[in-house]
């Protein structure tokens, strides 16, 4: 079974650097594999393994032909990658990103299943996977916490606030996976060395048959007006035990509606 995984290469969250003048993240340095994508890569490797073979292909979009993050996923065991790199993509929004990734996915022959994270760790729009499914006219299942494939069907346990839904869809399909779906492996020494020579197909927007003037700032139909820091986390509530602490904790939990 062949699985495509959409992966994003992002600035290291530990050292994101300053924002550009247009309020976007600086992406001209080294980029790393978005940790939330490592789950999809691992899931894909396990599904291909369980199916008795097939390739895992990465699809990504990043400036300057950046491949550092892709190499991490290749070191985990993915076979190859398609990387769309084009200055025209600067300022891309969710929808044009989805169109570009969908076109890139079409370059991968025989994809049975497409996996993505539920959202990226730098943009957080959380809409790209579903938009890709819509562009490709594929069934889409979101928030998978368990994925199985059998007889041309993908069966998914879909995380909800109260538990999970059992869903299934015919292949090919697109599934977005949560961080709980599997535990990503650590790349091995041999995997890292082998990743150096795995093929990365580097393409431009035009190579994909898309119009460069319809993507990026030109095609995003959006503008970032202002960026403000996230509010600092509020201090927690300290309950002094005067014999009734247990009662106060119960009231607190009751207020959260978790009881």
């Amino acid at each position: 079974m062949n699985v495509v995984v959409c992966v994003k290469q992002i600035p290291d969250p530990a050292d994101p650097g300053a924002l550009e003048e247009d309020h976007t993240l600086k992406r001209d340095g080294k980029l790393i594999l978005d940790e939330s994508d490592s789950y999809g890569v691992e899931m894909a490797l396990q599904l291909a393994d369980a199916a008795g073979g097939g390739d895992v292909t990465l699809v990504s979009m990043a400036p300057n032909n950046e491949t550092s993050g892709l190499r991490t996923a290749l070191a985990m065991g993915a076979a190859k990658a398609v990387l769309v790199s084009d200055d025209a993509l600067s300022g891309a929004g969710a929808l044009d990103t989805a169109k570009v990734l969908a076109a890139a996915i079409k370059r991968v022959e025989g994809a049975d299943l497409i996996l993505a994270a539920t959202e990226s760790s730098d943009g957080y729009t959380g809409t790209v996977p579903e938009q890709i499914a819509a562009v490709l006219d594929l069934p889409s299942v979101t928030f998978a916490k368990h994925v199985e494939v059998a007889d041309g069907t993908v069966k998914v346990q879909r995380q909800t606030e109260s538990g999970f839904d059992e869903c299934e869809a015919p292949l090919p399909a697109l599934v977005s996976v949560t961080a709980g779906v599997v535990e990503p492996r650590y790349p091995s020494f041999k995997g890292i060395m082998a990743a150096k020579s795995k093929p990365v197909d580097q393409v431009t927007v035009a190579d994909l048959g898309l119009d460069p003037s319809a993507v990026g700032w030109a095609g995003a139909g959006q503008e970032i007006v202002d960026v403000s820091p996230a509010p600092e986390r509020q201090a927690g509530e300290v309950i002094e035990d005067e014999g009734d602490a247990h009662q106060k904790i119960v009231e607190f939990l009751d207020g959260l509606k978790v009881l």
Partner: protein
Amino acid sequence: MADYTPPLRDIRFVLEHLAGLDDLAKLEPFGHADAASVFGVLAEFGRLMSEVWAPTNAVGDAEGSRHEGDEVRTPAGFREAYRHYVAGGWPAVPFDVDYQGGGFPWVVGIAMQEMLNSANMALAMAPLLTQGAIDAIAFHGDEAQKETFLRPMVTGAWSGTMNLTEPDAGSDVGALRTRAVRQDDGTYRITGQKVFITFGEHDLTEQIVHLVLARTPEAPPGTKGISCFIVPKYLVEEDGSLGDRNDVHVVSIEHKMGIRASPTCVLAFGERGDGGARGEGAVGYLIGEEHAGMRYMFTMMNNARLGVGVEGLGLAERAYQQAVAYASERVQGRAPGASPGESSTIIDHPDVRRMLLTMKAFTEAMRAMCYVQAAQIDVAKHHPDEAAATEARELVELLTPIVKSWCTDLAETVTSIGIQVHGGVGYVEETGAAQHYRDAKITQIYEGTNGIQAMDLVGRKLPLRGGAVVRDQISRMRATVAELGGGDPEGDGEGDLAVIGARLAEAVSTLEAATGWMFEHGVADPVEALSVATPYQRLFATTVGGWLMGRSALAARAALDGGSVDGSERSFFEAKVVTARFFAERLLPEVHGLVGPVMAGGRGLFALTPAQLAR
């Protein structure tokens, strides 16, 4: 519990600018070890250390390893951490490709060892000792022995130990009494008891390969009569599978000040006499020739002693990270310059700054020294030009006692300052700062106490090539002084590099004077040299540390002047120059205070009788 973040940026800096990684990649066996591959490997390895190994460190200290019957159980999480390490293929990285190694330079393996030690030194001792045993077999074993033992040891599937010490044979290995008797089939039967055997028994691997020093019946006394044997825990069948249990068993494990999770075993060889048809004694296989065991130990010594220096480096780094994190959070008092009524984090207090910069500067100098030494081991082994290989070999010989003693003495200092930064809570075990200090102490003692290192330096290393090897090193340091501009009287002497150069020039002159004294008085009367070997060793090592920090400053300045460096890169290089200047101005000058103790010679050391010493 304290987090550990692999210091990848500084590791890269030292590998690129001081250890000459690019030049190593040009050597024949290291063609595949280009910089991008090396740093990719180190980054992923660092992640494993930080996420999987580091959290086991405090648990291991609290639980310790436990001796139960014939077995030793390692603390919670150790088996899992070790399994990850082996599954990733990491133990093999710096070893020969012929035995399933990764064929990477030794210096890359040393960078990995630093991270292993920072993450969990007690657990890191299992691979460290295995490495020693691999070296011995790889250098001196026959083909059959290599075929049987090396592959599973290189991959980490089997572990190894080094069995030298006995109750009455510690620093004086020649006094050992364990016996080895040759059998008709060419194997030997080993009987005796060994103490202080690191990971002599444990539950991390199915097989343990003991390397044992023993004496054959007709052996001459002292070190000239020692032979070296392979004694596996399980005999190995023709097909490589494990067969009968050999007669080597754990008697007890020690309760120690530090590295409590590392099982330090008393091992008994041939005490049960349950060998059946094999006869009494543990089955052993001679490595190389009889009576050559001590010579073989010497071939491994440079690597082993560097490995212990790297333990010191790893502990210092972890202690430093913990101290900075605490000092950035702990609010206490009002620092100079803070508004009235405002409380400050202690990192804003000048004396805390002094402590943190001392930790940082020492740790970075230790890293420079360990990696430069490791890179010289690579050059010595693989450089096609005989002159270049010889120069590297001589430098390795000279610096071995310096790296071992300085990095472990400084580990004690840095981990102690780490506690001091924490104040009262640092003295409380839950804080975790004290563990690093307790763990560090042993590094000054084993693999040749630091006193033995000093004897090695003055007795064996100073006389190398009639004193020319040490003179070559002084010339190297003078060349760096010249580069720093410190030797140039025309300069205004105010810039960072000029100041570093000036302080280094003074230190080198002091070392030269002390070295001259050592040659003059030590040759005439060895007691004079041995009496002051330790302060001389410290003086020498601190000057070498200053030299490497000077080279660091030059490289950082060049990177800054090269342009197009901004953000966190600029900040890193600027910090490097500041740190180097701190070292030059505030740490390096200790060498001048050591001249007096050196030139005091042996006078008065034996003026008191033992009775007077006891009062």
